[in-house]
């Protein structure tokens, strides 16, 4: 729980004590909010038209928590993350007029590039999917780790080198001295991803956004990396926003989950409750489609969700999942559902959430 400060004047946060590996967070309004996304809509100018990739997304990231965003490819999770970091090309990206990303007292969507540069890597860091290509092949590991420190701290060369070695050690890589002078191609994929994590945590950011960090790794390595990230989170109090399409990763890592579909959030829920009692039909269908042991003996077939995600150009006006939903009613095609609180610390975007009392008639 010790958080070392290196000449930046950062204060110690309320460290969240962990008991079972998942921290209990009070969801009361007074809990510390690290980042607040309000009504975020991101659209791109493509071939003369505006294409909407993220639609009216709102959520909070609490300090020190692990929040997962799960959804299939193309549902807008990456775009959401990059919108927060403002890593999308400015001249073709448009945000909603009411969209806000509140962080440390300011709206990130209004910040200039210079202001964003100060924040990136220092207060909010991001790591990406492909460890093999995330590092610059012609610079040493040491110099790339050094870079983040150069941009955001006032440490001198000796102090920086010490910190870099400390970071390499932090991510459980042996022989930091040797690694310092090595090049990325001399490391394995898992090791590179550890370095990437080290780079991201170099300046002790408040939030670490991880965009599918383990998708490109072997399953065994995947588990190690996730455990590492969790350990580091607890040690430093950095919140993690974990983006993935793999529910197993969510189960292992996260406290709360956002489920996204077709550019919208369809469910927000603490992890346990999501897995035991999913509210949104989409989430439910996702969970049901996971193969489980014993299926073979029962002669069961794999369950899938029929249909396809609607294309960006022909989004339905009302519920976007209606087409593929087993609980579809005529209301679903007429009125778009909004994200509503549903039970304790949960929100669902559905007219007929699965666990609520308002069950619809079983569709014949």
């Amino acid at each position: 729980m010790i958080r070392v400060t290196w000449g930046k004047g950062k204060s110690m946060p309320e460290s969240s004590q962990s008991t079972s590996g998942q921290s209990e967070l009070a969801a009361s309004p007074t809990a510390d909010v690290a980042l607040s996304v309000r009504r975020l809509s991101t659209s791109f100018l493509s071939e003369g038209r505006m294409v909407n990739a993220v639609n009216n997304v709102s959520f909070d990231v609490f300090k020190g928590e692990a929040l997962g965003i799960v959804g299939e490819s193309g549902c807008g999770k990456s775009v959401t993350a990059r919108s927060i970091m403002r890593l999308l090309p400015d001249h073709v990206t448009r945000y909603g007029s009411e969209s806000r990303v509140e962080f440390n007292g300011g709206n990130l969507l209004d910040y200039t590039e210079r202001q964003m540069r100060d924040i990136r890597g220092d207060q909010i860091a991001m790591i990406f999917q492909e460890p093999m290509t995330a590092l610059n092949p012609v610079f040493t590991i040491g110099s790339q780790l050094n870079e983040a420190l150069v941009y955001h701290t006032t440490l001198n060369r000796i102090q920086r080198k010490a910190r870099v070695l400390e970071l390499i050690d932090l991510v459980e890589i042996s022989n930091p001295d040797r690694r310092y002078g090595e090049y990325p191609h001399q490391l394995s994929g898992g090791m590179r991803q550890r370095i990437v994590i080290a780079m991201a945590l170099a300046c002790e950011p408040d939030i670490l956004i991880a965009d599918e960090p383990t998708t490109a790794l072997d399953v065994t390595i995947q588990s190690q990396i996730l455990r590492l990230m969790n350990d580091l989170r607890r040690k430093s109090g950095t919140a993690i926003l974990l983006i993935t399409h793999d529910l197993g990763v969510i189960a292992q890592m996260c406290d709360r989950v956002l489920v996204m579909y077709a550019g919208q959030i369809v469910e927000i829920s603490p992890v346990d409750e999501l897995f035991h009692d999913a509210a949104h039909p989409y989430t439910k269908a996702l969970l049901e489609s996971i193969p489980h042991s014993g299926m073979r003996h029962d002669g069961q077939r794999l369950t899938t969700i029929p249909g396809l995600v609607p294309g960006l150009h022909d989004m339905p006006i009302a519920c976007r999942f209606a087409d593929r939903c087993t609980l579809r009613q005529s209301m679903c095609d007429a009125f778009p559902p909004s994200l509503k609180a549903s039970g304790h610390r949960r929100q669902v975007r559905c007219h007929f959430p699965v666990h609520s009392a308002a069950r619809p008639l079983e569709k014949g």
Partner: protein
Amino acid sequence: MWTYFLRRLLYNVPVFIGILLLVMVALRVRDPVYAYLGKNASADTIEAKREEFGLTRPFILATPMESQFGSFVVQVFTLDFSDDSWDHPGETVGDILGRCIGPSLALSIPALVLTTVISVIISVVAASFRGRLIDQSLVIAAVIGMSVSFLVYIIFGQYWGAYLLPEITGYKPFAINGYTHPSETTWWEYITYHWPHHCLLPVLISVIVAMGYDTRFYRAVMVEESGRDYITTARAKGASQIQVMFGHMLKNAMIPIITRVVITIPFLIMGSFLLETYFTIPGMGRQLILAVEHADFPVVQAFTAVLAAIYILANLLTDVLYALVDPRVRLS
């Protein structure tokens, strides 16, 4: 790393010998002596001349000193340029080579350096504003520039530099004829007056011609590099656009850039033919054309071999530079 160099060197040697073979065969398709002496010479004179220049020897199948090919290869590798020129009696090929290299270098090296530097800067600008107006106009300008013949640039360059400019300003800063060797004047005068007077205009023309091609290519390289993941990582760390472009991107882009610079060298050689001819600069290119016109066989043969050797050396240089720039090559 040294094994790498050795390998490259050994690889290039058979290539060079292949070139020599090609050149020699090409030049013997038409009997060189016949071409030189013309149709009016008698058969005896021709035969005598051929004997004199060793052209009656077997081409390959003999000991090195006795075959034409063998002895030429030996000559080249021992840098023996003592054959007499047919067209310039009293001068050996070596003499001619010696006096022609200087002017050629005076044109090619500044042109190479200027072109590369300017194109890289322009392409970095174009790539970082990709898709916007400045990028589009640069690309259009490059494409149009590429579609006009070199000759037109030369003609208009001369017209502008040697006729219009004097008319408007009264000065005659650029000459379109002649050249002064550095040995004929002091170094200072050479750099501040003689070189710009004779060489600056052709060099500028050479740069303008090459810029279209180079800019488009470098821009493509830059744009491709800028789409790479490590660039996104760097930006996520808080790097500014400039730090990303010149720190991260440029070093990775050096590899294709270096290749490209090497490819530009033969283009420069070609350009120098035309520029030297048009500007009457006594360089290698012009000399070669004159030799071809006058069927001066030894000169043509030797010069071609030298030019090819330059190209091969440039290739080797590229390999060296690769190793310096790309650690992946260095450590393999």
